[in-house]
């Protein structure tokens, strides 16, 4: 059996700061996209985001970690704690070298960095703090989770936008093969905290400029005009089936297969071939026939050319059709956190046997069975999660219901 068991999960999304509230919102197709509140966006051509309400990092993270980290790491630290608790894993009772950490990021500590750069130019180098060097860079979340929880197994970071966490599960599979049975895999992003962060995203040219929150982010819709950024992410504990069985852990889902391809820098491959190959590759590793897939959690960028390419890829692999959904249309695209949140939604979809809808989207002009309006009852035994990164990656992950875990 090549799969890994997901034994713990924690989500921090604009639609819910824990799995239960997140699932309730996701099932209802709730949309929480609204105006960015942290700073004035009147000088920007965009104004919307999916923000997490009421996340108080100081309530869950010690001061000495807070001062040296950006909010994207606060999300990861908090979610990592909850994932470990959910998995009934106490690192202090385990061999620390048996658990690795892989926390993805795409923007790093942008707000922390903007503050320090402002100090540099306003007041001089003496006013740049010593933590800039460790707070900004992408691996900060991996490093701080590892340090704070004493996890000394192989650690890594993937900086490939939304593909990160799906590829992270692929890395966990390889790491397990090499002898480290457990891994904390996750991703979290904080792209809405500073003007600098927003300016970088506007520069990418893919953000929707529509100001109506229910009309701005419409993946696979004829009115698609780009995406809206979201913040947050999710963290999972993943381990070998044997490890899960040995400690009688509850298996929440099985990571059955992963594949990733690359189709060129800074563009979504308009042919969709790279994504199609990734889908076929993941299904092959999972020994899964397309007919067995019950739902596809699509990338759903909301940029017309990208949507068309993804629709084409899905149609090629699933000529008989397959239910497709994009919950992130309700809370934004959270970069390295996006596919993490999608994996959480897929896990919950498997658990509850229901397919959540795509918020705000009505009829799709694509030949896709897009689930919109109300949630659709399953069964849901196999879920496929797709993600593409702006760096040119195309990633696919196959998740199976835990009843399908065999050795």
């Amino acid at each position, binding site marked *: 059996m090549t799969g890994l068991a997901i034994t713990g999960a924690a989500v921090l999304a604009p639609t819910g700061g824990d799995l239960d509230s997140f699932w309730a919102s996701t099932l209802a197709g709730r949309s929480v996209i609204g105006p960015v509140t942290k700073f004035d966006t009147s000088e920007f051509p965009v104004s919307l985001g999916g923000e997490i309400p009421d996340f108080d990092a100081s309530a869950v993270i*010690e001061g*000495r970690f*807070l001062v040296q980290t950006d909010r994207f790491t606060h999300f990861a630290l908090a979610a990592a704690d909850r994932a470990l608790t959910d998995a009934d894993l106490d690192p202090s009772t385990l061999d620390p070298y048996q658990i690795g950490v892989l926390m993805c990021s795409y923007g790093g500590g942008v707000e922390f960095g903007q503050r320090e750069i402002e100090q540099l130019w306003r007041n001089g180098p*003496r006013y740049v*703090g*010593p*933590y800039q060097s*460790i707070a900004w860079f992408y691996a900060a979340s991996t490093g701080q989770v590892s340090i704070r929880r004493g996890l000394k197994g192989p650690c890594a970071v993937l900086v490939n936008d939304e593909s990160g966490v799906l590829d992270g599960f692929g890395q966990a599979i390889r790491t397990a093969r090499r002898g480290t049975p457990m891994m904390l895999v996750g991703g979290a992003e904080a792209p809405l905290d500073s003007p600098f962060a927003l300016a970088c995203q506007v520069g990418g040219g893919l953000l929707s400029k529509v100001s109506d929150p229910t009309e701005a982010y419409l993946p696979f819709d004829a009115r698609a005009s780009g995406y809206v950024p979201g913040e947050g992410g999710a963290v999972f504990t993943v381990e070998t089936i044997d490890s899960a069985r040995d400690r009688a852990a509850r298996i929440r889902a099985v990571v059955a297969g992963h594949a990733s391809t690359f189709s060129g820098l800074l563009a979504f491959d308009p042919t969709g071939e790279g994504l199609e190959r990734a889908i076929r590759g993941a299904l092959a590793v999972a020994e899964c026939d397309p007919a067995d897939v019950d739902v596809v959690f699509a990338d759903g960028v909301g940029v017309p050319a990208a949507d068309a390419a993804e629709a084409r890829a899905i149609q090629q692999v699933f000529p008989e059709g397959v239910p497709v959904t994009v919950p992130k249309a309700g809370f934004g695209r959270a970069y390295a956190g996006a596919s993490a949140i999608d994996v959480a939604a897929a896990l919950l979809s498997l658990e509850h046997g229901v397919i959540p809808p795509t918020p705000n989207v009505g009829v799709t002009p694509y030949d896709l069975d897009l689930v919109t309006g109300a949630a659709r009852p399953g069964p849901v035994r196999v879920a496929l999660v797709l993600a593409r990164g702006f760096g040119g990656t195309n990633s696919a992950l196959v998740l199976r219901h835990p009843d399908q875990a065999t050795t």
Partner: protein
Amino acid sequence: MSTESPLSVEQLATIIKESAGVGLDPSALATDSSFEDLGVDSLGLLGVVVKLENQYGLTLSTAAEQCQTAGELVEMVNSKLGTAV
């Protein structure tokens, strides 16, 4: 000429809290406990030293970053303040 009053352990505790995120009772700083024992690591101490330099208008030598205890650091700062012209 420096007109700053000497650095006290109370002020140092405030600076450590702001810079290193570690909340300490000023009395803990009056003991021989090392910064490490008190939970202030090397980067944290670096931030504290820079904050002291900026706040008091001093230049402390790299010896400041190598102070083992709060007492050493307070003495170093106050001797600089005392001799400032």
